[in-house]
């Protein structure tokens, strides 16, 4: 559409910018509709005029007037963010094919980088907002391993698994795509702005809302559909068996993405959702290697070439004492006290735990419990002697 492309703002055309503006203007009604997830996802897929009719309420006439006279200059612009719409050839292909996917994205970190990240195989990491240390560490390890092998990690910007995934990928020097639920300048919580800055230097953050608009709860649900749409494989790390935790997996199913889950303890409520998914036939993920095999199922030769990173201590054999201690921690004796109950001397236990922590094989979690490093790094760092 050459006539509209003349009014481009950083590469997005007016109708697409208008869509973004419309969603932000309907934030109130959308928030109300967000109580029913399916209704919200359905609404996000409807055309503009219908959307105003459906939920515009008393403001319908006013909105129609504003809609007709919309000009791109009325949108707040922010430094560093680039707009990219579906009419741009660089727009991620995965979003074009998915129904209900956003039509334009504000990109922090550069459109070129988004293109680059989306052309590589992409994996979405999903899960609870209140994970256990096990879940957090697993997500971190998966992201670390995957991004080190050149896979793009996609995740939301919520607490818990999503943030752990970004942190893990950044630790490995990799890049992630963060799908924000608010406008780029209005992201919450504020304490994460530093992480966002770090992320934008290596990877990119995207948002479908105008830069200065907050997305509220519906924005979070909307960002989930973008996360799964961008990825080829969706991994759920830890999820309770509640509609909220499993919604993203449902979206992935609807978009026909490969669904995988990390198994957990059968007694833990935080693993009931994922264990149920596994029972229903989701692929099992234990470490980054499992994900790579899922990604390259059609092309096993590539799977051999892409190997997860190996840790700094790779190859150095662990002595029997520490190996034994590590195994005990792995099987649940994760406090000095419980190790002492198994007959270890307390000072031996303390010293050994510290040594393992300094090697990066253990970390100290909630309540001073030790947990083994994530499967990826553990598997590659400990020789199977």
């Amino acid at each position, binding site marked *: 559409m050459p006539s509209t492309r003349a009014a481009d703002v950083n590469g997005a055309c007016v109708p697409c910018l208008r869509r973004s503006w419309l969603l932000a203007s309907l934030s109130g009604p959308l928030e109300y509709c967000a109580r029913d997830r399916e209704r919200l996802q359905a609404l996000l897929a409807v055309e503009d005029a219908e959307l105003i009719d459906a939920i515009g309420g008393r403001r319908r006439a006013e909105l129609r007037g504003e809609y007709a006279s919309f000009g791109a200059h009325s949108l707040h612009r922010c430094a560093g963010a680039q707009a990219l719409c579906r009419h741009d050839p660089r727009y991620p292909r995965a979003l074009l094919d998915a129904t209900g996917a956003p039509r334009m994205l504000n990109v922090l970190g550069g459109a070129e980088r988004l293109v680059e990240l989306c052309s590589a195989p992409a994996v979405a990491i999903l899960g609870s907002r*209140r994970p256990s240390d096990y879940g957090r560490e697993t997500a971190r390890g998966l992201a670390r391993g995957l991004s080190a092998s050149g896979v793009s990690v996609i995740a939301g910007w919520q607490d818990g698994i999503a943030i752990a995934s970004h942190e893990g990928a950044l630790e490995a020097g990799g890049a992630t795509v963060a799908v924000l639920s608010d406008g780029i300048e209005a992201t919450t919580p504020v304490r994460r702005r530093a992480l966002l800055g770090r992320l934008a230097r290596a990877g990119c953050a995207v948002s479908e809302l105008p830069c200065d608009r907050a997305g509220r709860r519906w924005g979070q649900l909307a960002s989930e559909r973008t996360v799964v749409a961008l990825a080829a494989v969706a991994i759920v790390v830890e999820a309770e068996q509640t509609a909220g935790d499993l919604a993203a997996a449902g979206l992935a199913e609807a978009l026909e993405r490969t669904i995988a889950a990390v198994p957990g303890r059968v007694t833990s409520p935080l693993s009931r959702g994922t264990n149920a998914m596994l029972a229903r036939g989701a692929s099992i993920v234990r470490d980054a290697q499992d994900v790579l095999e899922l990604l390259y199922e059609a092309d096993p030769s590539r799977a051999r070439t892409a190997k997860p990173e190996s840790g700094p201590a790779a190859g150095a054999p662990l002595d029997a004492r520490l190996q034994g201690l590590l195994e005990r921690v792995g099987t649940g004796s994760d406090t000095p006290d*419980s190790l*002492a*109950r198994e007959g270890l001397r307390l000072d031996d236990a303390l010293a*050994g*735990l510290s040594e393992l922590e*300094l090697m990066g094989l253990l970390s100290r*979690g909630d*309540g001073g419990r030790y947990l083994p490093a994530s499967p990826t790094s553990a598997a590659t760092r400990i020789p199977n002697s």
Partner: protein
Amino acid sequence: MLARAHAFTIEGLHTRHVTVEVDVRPGLPAFTIVGLADTAVREARERINAAIRNSGYEFPARRITANLAPGDVPKAGPGLDLAIACAVLAASGQVHGERLASVALFGELALDGGVRAAHGTLAVAQATRAAGLAGLALSPSRAHEAKLIDGLEVAAVEKLRSAVRVLEGGAGDPLPRANPDLPAVYDASATTIDLRDVRGQAHAVEALVIAAAGAHNALLSGAPGTGKTMLAQRVCSILPPLSTDEAIEVTRIHSLMLGTRVEQLARARPFRAPHHTTTAAGLVGGARRGCVGEVVLAHNGVLFLDELSEFSRSALEALRQPLEDGCVAIARASHSAVYPARFMLLAATNPCPCGYAGELERCGCSEAQRARHARRLSGPLLDRVDLLVNLTRAGAHSTSATAPISSAQARDRVLDARERQAHRLSAQGVSVNAHMDARLLREHARLDEKGEEMMRAACERGLLSVRGEHRALRVARTIADLRGAQRVRARDVGAALALRTSTAPGHGRLA
């Protein structure tokens, strides 16, 4: 005619020597007291007048001026009555008070000439000896308290007449029998709490012994019901006993501040556990003139802050100076004072707002709540805490493979370790590892090669800050002392690192 007597006034914890000068000269009958006297002292005129008459002496119908020197020190309380009355009698020639110059007088007068006790006796007795006076005359009910100070001649005076007899070289009244039911302010033998009562939690008990051995400040973290408070209450039972000087200090502070009657010295270290609604002024003092806070009451003992995260920010900030310097300097518009406050800090907290973090997914706190909780705890106060002791519920339920150790056993180990520290550090003016500075650490906590390597690795992994490194070294030194070793080995460093307080940067959680 002029007469002089010696007395003391009390200001907060400090006693000030007061010279009472009384001048009696012809003129219209008047009785004036000058020298920054408060209401209680000014009212003394009436009490003295009646007491002198009712004791069978004559109250001089002349112009009497009593001066309390030094003139710039405010005098408070009724303890000066006895000294003024005796000086009046001497100045009017009714008493040959040759001993007025060597005996301090301390007490309030009753209208019938009886001598009443005034509070702060122990402090006054101590000050009397320090001022080089030979004796102290005071009410019989507090004579035993004054007798706690060695080398001081204590005369019990029941009446003004007895005081006059003492001043003329006679003997005081007989002392009442000591009251065996009156306990010492702190007495370990009076309580039955023992470390042996703690079931399981072997790790926490060991950490507590380490903390006691090096006088390290410690933070106990664990879910509700894991025994944090129970452990903390037992720490005094494993600390070394008070030395005589320390005992006098503790007893003096408590007899002054709480106004309690004491007949014996404190036998155990004070254990103060202020409620978490305590304000900054409540913790360090200074609300009123002469009002001291919990940190001063915990001097030479333990200050236990339960539910640390619930204390107000300002209250916790106020603890920085006493933790660093061992004293509090209080300056207000009307007064300023420095009080001793060297204590061991024990604090207890839940690991997260609901308290169940790390307890098999029972925690229901959001990231934001946890971050807020960790932020409340972290910062300057935690910088001065050497040990973090994590308690778990499983640890509380189980019976440990090893038998629980008793307070007596633990205390023996602590005493051994303290002796080693004192031997090593006494030349530097420090007595415990917790007070070693960076220079002493370099000298006395030298590590072997593997230990150095572990420290370096911990710093590189971001597990320790520079301050954290010093704390870990101090703890490692104490662990080696408990083992009876000269050198700090790598495994001591390992154990110290497992007890470190610092969190991984950006982790935002107390772990």
